[in-house]
């Protein structure tokens, strides 16, 4: 079946295109216009609509053991919604996997990365992902606080052993990449260390956070994994922590590195309250480090829950829990911390956080290197994306929001002075073209011939948020799944993984390690294709080696 999307505005930064034109879809691919009078089976009038590739979210906590715990911790947070058509089972179940897939699809997003899965819990994560309909998904596996990596570094085994281990983890857990979260700090917390910075030493193992980050960065790079090491720095949320981010950026040297939710590291210690925005310094550092990418982790006002494998940070923040309850898990490597939190528009601190995120968006000049996230649900739920797009694209709307913030918070940020407005082209770069390139997804994030037919059509209007909340049409693999902002039916996507070659010696070594340390077979974390309960649940993305 040939579908013809006729006369829409194609916003396709990957192909340097922003023009009125036609798009043809056959099966799951974007195809060239038919030759010699072949007519489309279906012609869709896209006149007046904006056509983009399906959105890609590189960092959103949508599945896994910690998200599960958050759901159980907060039954009051997710009352179910109004009844929906029975054609889409459980899509009305608040905060369920099914609702997650529907809400993303309705915004025109078709690929989402769950960025923090402990290797031992990979199967659980993949099972949850399998119950998220429509979109494609992926996980990043967490390393850097686990005994094996730290042990390799302690015994000075060097780069190749770490590289083999990283390959083994990627293959065993079916992950798309590697994330490190407060490198060494979470392991140190198990030894009752309560503060941990970039050059602090992990007790017993004798290695620093800097050494761990650099070792994993090198291993991921040398394996040819498309996505660079995904780093959650030390000292998240603390005043003056922009220095930690600057140190980490400098330590990247010339190799690729991705810094997650930089907003949470954009804090100085200036002003009467000892808390201020350091976004300009961070933006300057990012602007002059072409090897470094970041995502923002924008904070928005309202009740949410922070879900993080930075156990040390979450433990330290337990006093700010709202409502007053929290779960702290000392896991086999990172574990997790679940702390509910409310961002209040009237709070000086929260207003600064809100401003820092927008400052980073607006001050980092290259939309190919700044990624759109709220660190869902840590800064805000992903359902706030439409409001954030509107804030980025309209300086008058921003001024209205700023006018409602505490005046002292405006004084310690540059936000009120920033007049940049994102264009649709830049939005498409940040949410389509750039993430596809960052993750190595050659057939996504663009509208060129041969691309996967993940396509979102939006109806532009004065209300930019409404445009992005309810896509007019969304195609996933060429299948029309959303019409006028509502999911019409389910289909189930795949989980994207890399599969670097694993040394046979490493298999044997891991078997004996797991036996000695845990008394378990090393394959207890394996993710057999048949265990996930969906046909063809995985898709392998090529490594570049």
């Amino acid at each position, binding site marked *: 079946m040939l579908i013809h999307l006729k006369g829409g505005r194609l916003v396709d930064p990957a192909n340097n295109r922003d023009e009125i034109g036609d798009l043809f879809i056959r099966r799951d691919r974007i195809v060239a216009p038919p030759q010699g009078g072949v007519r489309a089976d279906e012609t869709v009038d896209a006149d007046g609509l904006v056509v983009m590739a399906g959105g890609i979210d590189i960092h959103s906590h949508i599945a896994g053991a910690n998200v599960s715990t958050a759901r159980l911790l907060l039954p009051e947070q997710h009352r179910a919604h109004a009844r929906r058509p029975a054609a889409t089972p*459980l899509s009305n179940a608040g905060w369920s996997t099914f609702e997650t897939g529907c809400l993303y699809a309705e915004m025109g997003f078709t690929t989402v990365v769950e960025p923090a899965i402990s290797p031992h819990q990979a199967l659980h994560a993949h099972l949850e992902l399998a*119950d998220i309909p429509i979109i494609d998904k992926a996980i990043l596996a967490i390393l850097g606080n686990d005994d094996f990596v730290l042990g390799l570094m302690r015994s000075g085994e060097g780069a190749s052993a770490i590289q083999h281990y990283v390959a083994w983890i990627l293959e065993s857990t079916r992950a798309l990449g590697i994330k490190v979260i407060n490198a060494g700090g979470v392991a140190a917390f198990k030894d*009752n260390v309560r503060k941990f910075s970039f050059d602090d030493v992990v007790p017993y193992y004798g290695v620093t956070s800097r050494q761990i980050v650099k070792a994993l960065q090198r291993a991921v790079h040398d394996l040819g994994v498309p996505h660079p090491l995904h780093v959650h720095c030390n000292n998240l949320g603390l005043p003056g922590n922009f220095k930690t981010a600057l140190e980490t950026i400098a330590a990247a040297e010339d190799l690729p590195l991705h810094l997650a939710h930089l907003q949470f590291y954009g804090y100085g210690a200036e002003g009467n309250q000892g808390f201020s925005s350091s976004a300009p310094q961070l933006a300057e550092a990012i602007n002059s480090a072409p090897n470094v990418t970041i995502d923002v982790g924008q904070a928005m006002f309202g009740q949410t829950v922070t879900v993080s494998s930075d156990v040390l940070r979450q433990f330290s923040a337990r006093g700010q829990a709202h409502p007053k309850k929290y779960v702290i898990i000392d896991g086999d490597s990172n574990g997790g911390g679940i702390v509910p939190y409310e961002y209040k528009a009237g709070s000086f601190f929260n207003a600064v956080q809100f401003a820092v995120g927008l400052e980073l968006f607006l001050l980092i000049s290259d939309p190919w290197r700044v990624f759109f996230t709220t660190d869902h649900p840590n800064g805000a739920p992903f359902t706030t994306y439409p409001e954030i797009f509107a804030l980025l694209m309209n300086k008058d709307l921003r001024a209205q929001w700023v006018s409602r913030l505490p005046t002292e918070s405006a004084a310690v940020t540059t936000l009120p002075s920033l007049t940049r407005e994102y264009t649709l082209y830049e939005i498409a770069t940040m949410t389509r073209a750039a993430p596809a390139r960052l993750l190595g997804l050659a057939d996504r994030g663009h509208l060129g011939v041969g691309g996967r037919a993940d396509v979102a059509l939006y109806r532009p209007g004065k209300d930019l948020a409404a445009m992005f909340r309810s896509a007019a049409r969304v195609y996933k693999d060429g299948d029309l799944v959303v019409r006028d902002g509502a999911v019409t039916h389910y289909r189930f996507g795949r989980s994207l993984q890399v599969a670097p070659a694993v040394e046979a010696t490493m298999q044997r070594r891991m078997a004996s390690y797991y036996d000695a340390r845990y008394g378990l077979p090393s394959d*207890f974390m394996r993710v057999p294709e048949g265990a996930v309960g969906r046909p063809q649940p995985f898709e392998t993305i090529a490594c570049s080696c």
Partner: protein
Amino acid sequence: MEHMASGDQGVTEPAASIDGDPASLEDAAAEAARLLARSSQPLIAGLGADIEGARAAIALAEQVGGVVEHMHSSVLMRDLDCLRETGVMLTTPGEARVRADVLLLVGDALVETWPALIERLLRLPARPEGVDVARRVIWLAPEADAKIPGFSGEITVIGAGIGATRAVNLAVLRARLKGRRVARAEIPLPTLDALAADLKGARFGVAIWTAARLGALELEMLNGLVRDLNDTTRFSTLPLAAPDNGAGVLAACGWMTGFPMRTGFGTGAPEHNPWRFDAERLVASGETDCVLWVSAFGAPPLVWRGGSISVALCDRETRLAETPKVRIEVARPGVDHDAVLHSPDTGTLGAVSAKAPRTAAPTVAEALARIAARLQDSSASTC
């Protein structure tokens, strides 16, 4: 009468029955669908199933407007209530194994609940990196003369047989830990003070219990005690997992509906109410008129007052007090077929290969899918 074993490799034909008479799987599924479709309040209970089975049961519950329950919900809920009312500190069996220098066992039935406790936790493992952790085992408030058979190591037993006053003694211990004055306690104060000092002196302590044997107040005090200990040192908890894949079903229920078990779909959207959707209460009050009981691990059904099972999906050997309207034999997860189950040894979900297939009976998920498929016909014929 049940079908005879087919002989080959000991794999037998599946058995199904209606009113105790042998029936084909198709007929049994159709009859089950008819009962569910006619019911004004179906209850899917037991739920001793693998993850695929739980997924199918939850999907079916939504379809028929039923309630999802698990046979060990009341145990699971006691731990869960602490988690969602006040919050908790948790660790994994693996981390407790390699790191704990103090294990605080509380209450009874620990080895019975998790036989591997001795081998995995009480005995100190060889540490590949050579960290020398001395492990102290303290057993608080077990039954009088309680023993851990098969473990010869040293255990410090405190407050054996205090039974009814366990909650008060835990509260006193917590108060002493905070340096507060107390009037009296069953356990002598010097003993409690020494215990408080030992717990505070732990580098990484782990408290272990099964909620099957502790009350709500006791659990709240224990979790509070552990939270307080973390003001100065590191201490966590390892509540033992309920059997019959309780933790696995809880996980699936959580991600699929947002809620734990005791969730109903009567309004079309999931609604969680631990009192209203308690299976025992629903049966005793007569609010449910159709119970679909799932038990694939061989656990016998609870004995209910005032109601019986309409549809039973269970092991061939399971004896039911009354003949259900429909009985469908199901395969045992991890024995007869590959399955995903929660593992008490790892504290997470794991893929388990079939150990020794004995039957060609359908899996729970397959049996429920057959019923769901016939539901369309049933609703068409009754509407």
